[in-house]
């Protein structure tokens, strides 16, 4: 018997985890009317956050990566969401949706709005099958508990959070016992490592960036995906021409311009992100022959604008310090917005 003629795909070197609503899609669900409208929207009516699909496409261009989507949208929306992703040219490897009908039928009302008991086991279980060396970048938003859950996920698998703290967090987060068991079981199966490089939080609600300081420099609040692309360029996930492609899409489809892009660049510099080299790489890419840059021609001063924003600051500020995250004191960040504990000062 001959060996099967099969070539296995290379194991992923990088895993990109995305939330969907308010991270990839411009979704409104703050009122009942919004919820109903969102539920009945067709795929072509759904609008992606500017630059999000371009960023995903460029990240997947590099190969060796997996795209894992964990969304709080109900399972019944799978067909329309998948259609939307396909329309945008986004290919995914894993797509988890929330079983809200199941939760409702089982009387698990806390689970309808709770995020910790849903997302944390989902991403830990996904990580179980990942190669130890695969690094991760996570994308969430400021509408729910993404910064908290993603950071906890990162610190759990890095061994920086112990069983006692996890128990306190699961209890305070209102996680049902079976979900808590899933968390612990998946956690135990994951070899200790420190794979999470960045956690991007899309500021859909324009939450002040200082709100996320407690999570340390790994969490980067972003006003747009050009900012994420710049950081990923500095981190070696993207090349300068890829970043420019994302910028071009944002200019062409979402009304971004030289001012918004250069302000976005400076905003990150002011927060201490080391982007000087990224700026140099972008400058070189802009000087080279590139048909894409025809779209930037109405803004011939892009280089000057970036240089000016850089020079305007004098000495760049130091990067923010790395610090241990105190999940027990931050648990109110993870509670649904109408929860009593949510009103605690951040």
């Amino acid at each position, binding site marked *: 018997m001959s060996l099967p003629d099969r070539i296995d795909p290379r194991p992923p070197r990088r895993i990109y985890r995305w939330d969907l609503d308010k991270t990839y899609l411009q979704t409104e669900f703050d009122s009942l009317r919004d919820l109903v409208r969102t539920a009945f929207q067709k795929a072509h009516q759904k609008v992606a956050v500017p630059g999000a699909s371009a960023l995903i496409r460029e990240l997947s261009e590099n190969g060796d990566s997996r795209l894992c989507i964990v969304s709080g949208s109900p399972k019944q929306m799978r067909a329309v969401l998948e259609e939307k992703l396909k329309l945008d040219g986004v290919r995914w490897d894993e797509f988890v949706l929330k079983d809200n009908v199941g939760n409702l039928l089982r009387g698990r009302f806390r689970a309808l709005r709770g995020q910790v008991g849903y997302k944390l086991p989902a991403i830990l279980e996904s990580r179980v099958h990942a190669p130890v060396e695969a690094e991760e970048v996570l994308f969430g938003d400021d509408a729910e508990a993404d910064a908290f859950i993603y950071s906890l996920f990162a610190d759990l698998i890095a061994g920086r959070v112990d069983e006692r703290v996890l128990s306190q967090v699961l209890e305070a987060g209102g996680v049902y016992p079976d979900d808590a068991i899933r968390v612990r079981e998946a956690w135990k199966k994951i070899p200790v490592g420190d794979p999470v490089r960045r956690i991007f939080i899309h500021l859909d609600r*324009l939450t*002040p960036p200082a709100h996320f300081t407690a999570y340390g420099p790994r969490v980067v609040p972003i006003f747009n995906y050009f900012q994420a692309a710049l950081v990923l360029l500095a981190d070696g996930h993207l090349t300068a021409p890829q970043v420019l492609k994302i910028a071009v899409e944002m200019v062409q489809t979402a009304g971004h311009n030289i001012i918004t892009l250069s302000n976005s660049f*400076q905003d990150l510099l002011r927060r201490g992100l080391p982007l000087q080299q990224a700026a140099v790489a972008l400058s070189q890419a802009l000087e080279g022959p590139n048909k894409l840059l025809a779209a930037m021609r109405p803004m011939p001063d892009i280089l000057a604008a970036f240089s000016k*924003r850089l020079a*305007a600051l*004098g000495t760049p500020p130091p990067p923010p310090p790395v610090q241990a995250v105190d999940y027990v004191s931050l648990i109110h960040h993870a509670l649904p917005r109408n929860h009593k504990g949510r009103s605690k000062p951040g």
Partner: protein
Amino acid sequence: MVGTQPQPVTIAFDVMGTDHGPAEVVRGAAMLSLESPHIHTLLVGDRSLIDEALAETKHNGERISVQHAADFIGMDEKPGEALARKPNASVAVAARLVAEGEAQALVSAGNTGAGVLACARHFQLIPGVRRAALATVYPTRSVRGAKGDPFSLILDVGATVEATADDLVTFAVMGSAYARIISQNDRPKVALLSNGIEPQKGPPRVVEAHARLSEMKDIHFIGNVEGIDIPKGTADVIVTDGFVGNVCLKMLEGVHDTVVELAQYAYKESLRWRAGLAMLSSGIQRIKDITDWNQYGGAPILGFDKIFIKAHGRSKSRAIANAGKVAAKVVSNNLGAAIREGLTK
């Protein structure tokens, strides 16, 4: 036109040297970044203070940039000396950036003299304008324009102490153009401040200016008004020289403060008076709302080729944001061109 987006405008804010500190100006700019998508702000001042305030404030980072300026000029410093000693003071840097085209207008709630002087050093006077005029707004009994603006414009209130007839005519043209844009008042009523309504009343320069303004078809000149007409709102634009205007302004402020003090005194002194004030409270609140200069934001320095809106030193974030909106409106409606056109007729 439906679907037309306003052109992007960048407003430079001198963040330093205000009564409430830099954080208040930053909060005003942050407010602006959330409310007016076409307005970008360039915050000029101590970068670390600005960043600290921004990080704690809800804002849109796509619409804000920062220019570090190491120095600033305090309210009690002498403008000329201070600017000479501190060439990198925030107001000077901001004025330079506007002159270089990095922003289209300057807003400052800091030292007025330093602001005017910084503009004089970096901006050009519009051809035909001999001296810039410092304007102010004053709440009046009557309202004007499409939006029922309760404020009239008084100029000059201090930049040109001794104005000539030429200057007064220029002030009238500039004030009229500004009122048309900001109050959306197609035919603002312009008057000269004098000691009587008759054309021959007042010093020779006022008499001469009266004669010349009477012949200008593009200015809705209603003649002379007296001090009593300022709070009445008889005119939308009141023209005077910097000496009289400043005395007038300070007296109006003094009257306002005295009335507030008297009300406080009455409130404490007698139960009957307190009851009376309580009965009037809704009316008092209404007057307070109408005359709240925080709604207006600031007043312009008119005559330069670039826009400078001077916000009050005690401005809170709402007033700062509104000053930014006023500046953007003036830029978008091309005040300079309107003044140039008015001066050539």
